[in-house]
């Protein structure tokens, strides 16, 4: 059934009447996502032009629609509050698109919202191709299939997905975990879910410089995914030390976050690391051809 998201997931949109929220709501509906409503305080009782009802609070929306998933399009100062509101209303999975949330806000959110899965923040969302898309990703590049993908990046993910799709490798679920220092769902969290997903035959991990998520992922794969092929890619291998490149999390400081360390960790775990995205489909096919 893929992970985190399927055809039956009921999704609400926080910030549904904002410019971004409205635009992507329309796109998600076009993709086939079951959008059941949205929230904008003070606009409760109205409807957006797609006919979806707008509520004043997340709780009102959940009570009326049975939504289990939310996607958050609110400015950084209000994003943590939106996550707390979702948690409080019993939401089980929240995708937070917002970029620029203070790291301390996220520290508090992840420390206290036990049991709610958070994707992001500063992420493109997730998609289970052919079933549902909750995010801002271009739906047309995805193809249904049996490859899982996890990425810290947005557009680089589209690049890789496009290559996979064109090579005949459809996807079970693609998760953009986000480029911030503090994120709700890590590579390891996703790998744990893919490990037991019967609809995923192999996983592509698309990391980048900065932090130690990739090293943690490699260690997890070595121990817990002996029978599921994994292929990795590390973005920013040509980046110099000390420069923050776009993502707040993408910075090499001292000995932390270097591509060498990440490549070494993956190779030690038996995970081939593609030099360039275009090699990924071939590596996946090679790994799938090896009998487990």
């Amino acid at each position, binding site marked *: 059934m893929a992970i985190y998201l399927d055809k039956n997931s009921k999704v609400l949109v926080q910030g549904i009447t904002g410019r971004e929220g409205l635009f992507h709501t329309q796109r998600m509906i076009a993709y086939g996502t079951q959008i059941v409503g949205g929230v904008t305080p003070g606009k409760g009782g109205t409807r957006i032009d797609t006919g979806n009802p707008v509520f004043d609070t997340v709780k009102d929306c959940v009570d009326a629609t049975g939504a289990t998933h939310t996607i958050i399009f609110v400015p*950084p*100062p209000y994003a943590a509050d939106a996550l707390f509101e979702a948690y409080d209303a019993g939401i089980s999975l929240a995708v937070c698109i917002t970029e*620029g*949330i*203070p*790291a*301390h*806000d*996220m*520290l*508090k959110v*992840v*420390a*206290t919202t036990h049991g709610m899965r958070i994707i992001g923040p500063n992420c*493109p969302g997730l998609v289970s191709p052919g079933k549902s898309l909750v995010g*801002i*990703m*271009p739906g047309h*590049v995805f193809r249904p299939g049996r490859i899982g993908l996890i*990425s*810290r*990046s*947005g*557009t*680089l*993910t*589209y*690049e890789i997905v*496009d290559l996979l799709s064109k090579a005949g490798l459809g996807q079970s679920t693609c998760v953009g975990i986000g*480029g911030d*220092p*503090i994120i709700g769902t890590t590579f390891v969290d996703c790998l744990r879910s893919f490990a037991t997903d019967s609809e995923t035959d192999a996983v592509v991990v*698309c990391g*980048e*410089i900065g*932090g*130690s*998520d990739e090293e*943690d992922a490699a260690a997890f794969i070595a121990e817990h995914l002996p029978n599921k092929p994994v292929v990795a890619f590390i*973005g*920013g*291998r*040509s*980046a*110099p030390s000390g*420069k*923050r*490149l*776009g*993502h*707040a*999390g*993408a910075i090499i400081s*001292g000995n932390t976050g270097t591509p060498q360390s990440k490549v070494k960790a993956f190779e030690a775990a038996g995970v081939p690391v593609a*030099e*360039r*995205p*275009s090699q990924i489909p071939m590596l996946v096919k090679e790994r799938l051809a090896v009998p487990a």
Partner: protein
Amino acid sequence: MEYQGKELFRGVGIPTPRGVFVRSPDDVAAFIAENPGAWVLKSQVLMGGRGKAGGIKFASSPDEGRELARELIGKVLRNEQNPDGEEVKSLLVEEKVAIASEAYVSITIDRAAKKPVVIVTAQGGMDVEEVAAHDPDAISKYWIDAAIGFEPFIARRLAFAAKLPTGFQRAFPSILGGLYAMFMEYGANLVEINPLVLSEDGRVIASDAKVDLDDNGLYKHPELKAWKNEAPADEDQAAALATGLGISNYAKLDGNIGIIANGAGLGMGTMDAVRNAGGAAANFLDIGGGAQAELVKKSYNLVVGDPKVKAMFINIFGGITRGDQVAKGIVEALAGDDVRKVPLVVRLTGTNEKEGREILAGAGMNPVETMDEGARRAVELARG
């Protein structure tokens, strides 16, 4: 600067050396005349290594103080990291503390644990990364549960674990509590006291203090924005803001292939592709999501403004970003007479790809199909 950081520390009850912030030699003399004793004159500059650069002096009489202050104020401090130097405009006159012992304490964010981590070692005054490398057992850490926050037992545990001299013990919970309060209040990435000094008369004092703030959290403390503004703006960040990009969406690098991409991941991927093709990127530039033609045009101008750029590779995978807008921006940028032109390779796929290609074709441009191909072409073009 140091005196401002120390104000924040005093605000949460962390003792700092007695002292006064001054701008003139006469103020130094007057202060020492009123407060006889041994004083340290510390140049208030933003660069590191001011001690070795001659920015710190000791005085024990009003005349000596005035004399040394005259030497310091107006002086330009220089070192390897700061070849242009920084002029000293003010001094912090601080008591010369008789040191019995030095410790190190800091709080920072552990990304992997998603928690604040407190770091303590009895080896104060040293570079903590070096201590970690050579004597890891000398460093004690505690990961704070953000739901609970700081509690005094954390300070006790760390002080005992790091074997801090007994003289530190009593004051340690209140100092660490103050440090955590500051870390939380200002949403800091790092708060650090190095060294935390135990004086011979038994006081525990933050002798040097450092705070690194999270840009994303600064809006909660407008009063600190002014401070940040005093810092010499990172040239790349300033250029990014002037262009209308996010603060970390542009960085100048050493190569000669200019790069524009949409998305940080694709931007880094494009740099990598250029390297794989045997070239080197002259910059990182992420136009972000949903960029309009105007921003593309300005970004083009920013990149070619760097004289070492010999060729440019624009790599767009349209998701939110629409191909027609990007194409329009490119055409407009090239239409300007006031802009330096370099050989250009465009790769354009995704949303509104067809419309974009038509616009480019109208201007006589023919996009490549893949990132790898684009990188190869750009490297060839740069070689001329």
